[in-house]
């Protein structure tokens, strides 16, 4: 029998790899689907669910553009329109943008770090199921006319108990709780995996820029999400058990909601934008076959962006009665955050300058990112000034700005990343021809839809109006915007066709079709369940471009249990080995139990307390050791 301690010197013989595949495979069928803790299948599910919500959000936007195409239109009434634009905002921000970025992180961070799974595999499954239950709950409510209708920002007192009868806003508050828990879980996963699971030799200055972006995003999530969680908790309490936190007549405060919401709100848009910067760095490096210029400057810019994003939330509230001195501080902070973004853009341009660009679809999307995002960034700097913002805020000028930075800064890099990593996830290349068509349609559609909105904003068209009078003169430009929306719709359909065609029938992609430098290209496409037969040793920041002919690896990890290597924080020196928990149904059951708890608390506030009590059982089951005790090695000098 091959001893677990197979001699380190011999290469991976066939039998070892087969045992690894058996150890890391999941039970067959639907039961296996439900209990798996493998980070790639959970992340793939995350991406597909988030993309489905992107399509639903897109349909809501299309309906809104239909209604706004002509003055005094009657496609939808005011009530349905209010639900539509709230659902569009909530879906795109909470159910698509943040989850898809976390999912891309959960898929590629372990691969890029050279490890076999995330730090807490079961917690990862729990996070996905919580997110799924939250999204399903929101859309089931929406389809039976209980969708939230007070805007994705949900200002009190409109969303308070007096001016929003029924359970619509309670649905919104609970959905926020679900998606916030899922995001926090994802963030803790990415941080702990990056700190402890790195391949030996991957010191802090050899971590790929994509992983740096994901870590900065995770820290932003950890400090931003609690703000919206506490806020929606206060609102849920105000609406259910008569607390007065937002009741101006009983000492409460209407602006408190805005402060807490935007303290989360602005970091959230950077939570969406920072991973996109990581994606752009990966794509630029690979498609110009050159290391990104100024690694330290890029990492410091990422950290600076994440840090400053917490200091400028009041620029959403310049029109509120806020002391003027405070507003000018936030003007300075809002303008300052453009510097790190500027530094990164200059570094990318320098990389393209010194490299040899290949104009395939991922690089096209990155060039599209440059063109669109810089316009959005500049209007952002303009809106940072108080006097100009008082003319522009809550008008279609800001709608144009936010779509330029979110679509330009988030969706363009995301589509580029889809085309870039689709071969790695599925083993098939997406078709270049369809890709180019999709890019140009999306690029043109984006400008035709959102550029006229700048002018509409100046003409006094406020946000969130279900219709407008012909006398206002906003008709023609709104028609242009609606036509643009159709073009975007066509391009997204084209993307779906491309994915459908290439999922099975695309050209077979080898392990490294684009000749990338990060470690995920060292695995097969799609990667094996255990990612790496032997954990690689990193010799330089260049990754695969820098490794000598023979890939240095680590031997001695057991193949009959799911064992991963833990390394130190700074220099990634091997420190200990850790046996990951097996697949289990308990995360799904705990998520289900929490779902029932939060949803029942809408109708019976004490339901929340009963549910927390019930949650103890699945939690105990989760921690219940199933495997028999085995000899463990415990180091004598233990860190206290």
């Amino acid at each position, binding site marked *: 029998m091959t001893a677990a301690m197979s001699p380190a010197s011999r290469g991976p013989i066939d039998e070892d790899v087969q045992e690894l595949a058996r150890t890391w495979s999941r039970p067959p069928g639907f039961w296996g689907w439900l209990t798996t803790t493998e980070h790639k299948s959970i992340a793939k599910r995350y991406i597909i669910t988030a993309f489905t919500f992107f399509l639903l959000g897109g349909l809501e936007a299309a309906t809104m553009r239909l209604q706004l195409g002509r003055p005094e239109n009657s496609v939808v009434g005011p009530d349905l329109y209010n639900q539509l634009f709230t659902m569009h905002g909530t879906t795109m921000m909470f159910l698509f943008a943040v989850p898809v970025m976390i999912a891309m992180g959960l898929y590629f961070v372990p691969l890029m770090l050279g490890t076999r799974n995330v730090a807490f595999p079961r917690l990862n499954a729990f996070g996905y199921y919580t997110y799924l239950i939250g999204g399903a709950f929101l859309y089931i409510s929406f389809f039976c006319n209980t969708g939230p209708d007070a805007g994705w920002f949900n200002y009190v007192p409109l969303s308070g108990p007096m001016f929003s009868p029924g359970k619509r806003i309670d649905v919104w508050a609970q959905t926020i709780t679900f998606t916030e828990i899922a995001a926090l879980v994802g963030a803790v996963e990415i941080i702990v995996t990056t700190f402890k699971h790195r391949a030996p030799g991957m010191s802090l200055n050899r971590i790929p820029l994509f992983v740096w972006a994901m870590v900065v995003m995770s820290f932003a999530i950890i400090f931003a999400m609690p703000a919206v969680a506490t806020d929606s908790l206060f609102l849920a309490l105000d609406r259910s058990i008569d607390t007065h936190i937002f009741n101006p007549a009983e000492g409460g405060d209407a602006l408190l909601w805005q402060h807490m919401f935007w303290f989360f709100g602005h970091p959230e848009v950077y939570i969406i934008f920072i991973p996109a910067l990581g994606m752009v760095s990966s794509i630029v490096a690979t498609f110009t076959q050159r290391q990104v210029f100024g690694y330290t400057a890029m990492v410091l810019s990422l950290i600076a962006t994440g840090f400053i994003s917490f200091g400028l939330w009041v620029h959403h509230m310049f*029109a509120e009665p806020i002391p003027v001195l405070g507003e000018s501080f936030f003007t300075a902070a809002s303008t300052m955050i*453009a510097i790190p973004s500027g530094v990164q853009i200059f570094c990318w341009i320098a990389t393209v300058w010194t490299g040899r660009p290949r104009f395939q679809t991922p690089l096209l999307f990155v060039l599209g990112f440059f063109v669109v995002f810089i316009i959005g960034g500049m209007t952002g700097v303009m809106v940072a000034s108080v*006097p100009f913002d008082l003319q522009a805020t809550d008008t279609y000028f800001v709608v144009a700005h936010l779509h330029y930075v979110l679509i330009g800064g988030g969706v363009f890099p995301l589509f580029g990343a889809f085309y870039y990593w689709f071969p790695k996830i599925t083993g098939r290349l997406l078709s270049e021809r369809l890709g180019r068509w999709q890019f140009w349609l999306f690029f043109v559609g984006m400008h035709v839809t959102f550029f006229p909105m700048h002018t509409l904003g100046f003409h006094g068209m406020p946000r969130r109006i279900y219709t407008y009078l012909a006398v206002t003169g906003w008709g023609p430009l709104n028609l242009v915007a609606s036509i643009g929306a159709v073009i975007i719709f066509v391009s997204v359909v084209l993307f779906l066709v491309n994915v459908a065609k290439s999922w099975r029938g695309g050209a077979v992609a080898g392990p490294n079709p684009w000749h990338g430098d990060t470690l995920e290209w060292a695995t097969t496409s799609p990667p094996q369940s255990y990612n790496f037969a032997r954990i690689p040793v990193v010799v330089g920041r260049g990754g695969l471009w820098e490794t000598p002919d023979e890939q240095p690896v680590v031997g001695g990890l057991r193949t009959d249990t799911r064992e991963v290597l833990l390394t130190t924080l700074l220099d990634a020196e091997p420190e200990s080995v850790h046996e990951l928990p097996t697949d289990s149904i308990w995360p799904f059951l705990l998520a289900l139990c929490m779902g029932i708890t939060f949803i029942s608390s809408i109708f019976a506030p004490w339901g929340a307390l009963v549910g927390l009590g019930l949650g103890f059982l699945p939690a105990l089951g989760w921690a219940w050791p199933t495997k028999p005790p085995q000899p463990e090695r415990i180091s004598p000098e233990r860190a206290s």
Partner: protein
Amino acid sequence: MNSFCLVMAALAQPLPWIGEHSALDPSGTASKHVASLWWAMFWTSLVVYVIVMIALGYAAFRRRTNAPADATSSERLTPAPRSVHLTVGIATGVTVLILFIVVVTDFFTARAIATPATGAVHIKIIARQWWWYAVYSGDTVPQQQLSVANEIHVPVGKPIVFTLTSRDVIHSFWVPNLNGKTDAVPGYESNAWFRADTPGVYRGQCAEFCGLEHAKMAFTIVAESEEQYNKWYQAQLAPAVPTTDSLRSQGERVFMTGTCSSCHAIRGTGAGGTLGPELTHLASQRTIAAGTLQNTPDNLARWILDAQRIKPGAAMPSQELSSRDLNVLVAYLEGLR
């Protein structure tokens, strides 16, 4: 800096798409400053944008010796030449400088249009779900304090100071041509001001989402000369002229005994409801239903009979009136000059 902005502002005038109702066609001192600030930032950004795009374009499409496939592995990792480091450094420095200038301009513009302590006219705006209630609170004598709904007359060339609050949810008081917007928040008193330099009729609209009919919550600012404003003010202060001819008196009876007097008030008659706007001089106003309809007899009839079809969700219910009652009521209301 200021002259540079004015020149830029002048350049922008003939641009075709700028209609009359726009923040870029300022007719108030405050909005003039903001418009010139906008044009200054616009042209600066355009120049920077063009430079960055040229740099990107050249970096991407410049001719290179060999194809990317055979880029040697050492070439991928060799650090960039010093000139590239220098360029990126300079670019970052220039960015910081431009941003600093923009911030300083913002501060000066903000100081220039700060709300003055006192103004020629003090108006207290109470925003309600889906219409505006304005009280001219400057005068000390209560009988002289005029309260109107949705149509606010102001003297030209004088600073008008507003105190904004809200009766229910957060609204936002905004006239694009005259100044930026200020939110009316329940539990707070916020201050706003503007000074109309050229007489005219300016359209304002609620800019903070406030529920079902946020879209149809407009108001009108009529800037006119001093004496016209005083004449209008005294006319509005006078109570309604008692009706004489029989048709209008029947209409008055329908108004007094029907549902109208529960919510609306007409000074000089028995009707004293404060839930809806005051109708003492309804006929003198340009629009009805918070700027939704022009003030014509058939629009008035259509609004009275079926308000919920025009503004679904509004506090004004659709009335159950026979056509005869409706005609006499409209006749009466048209007489309220």
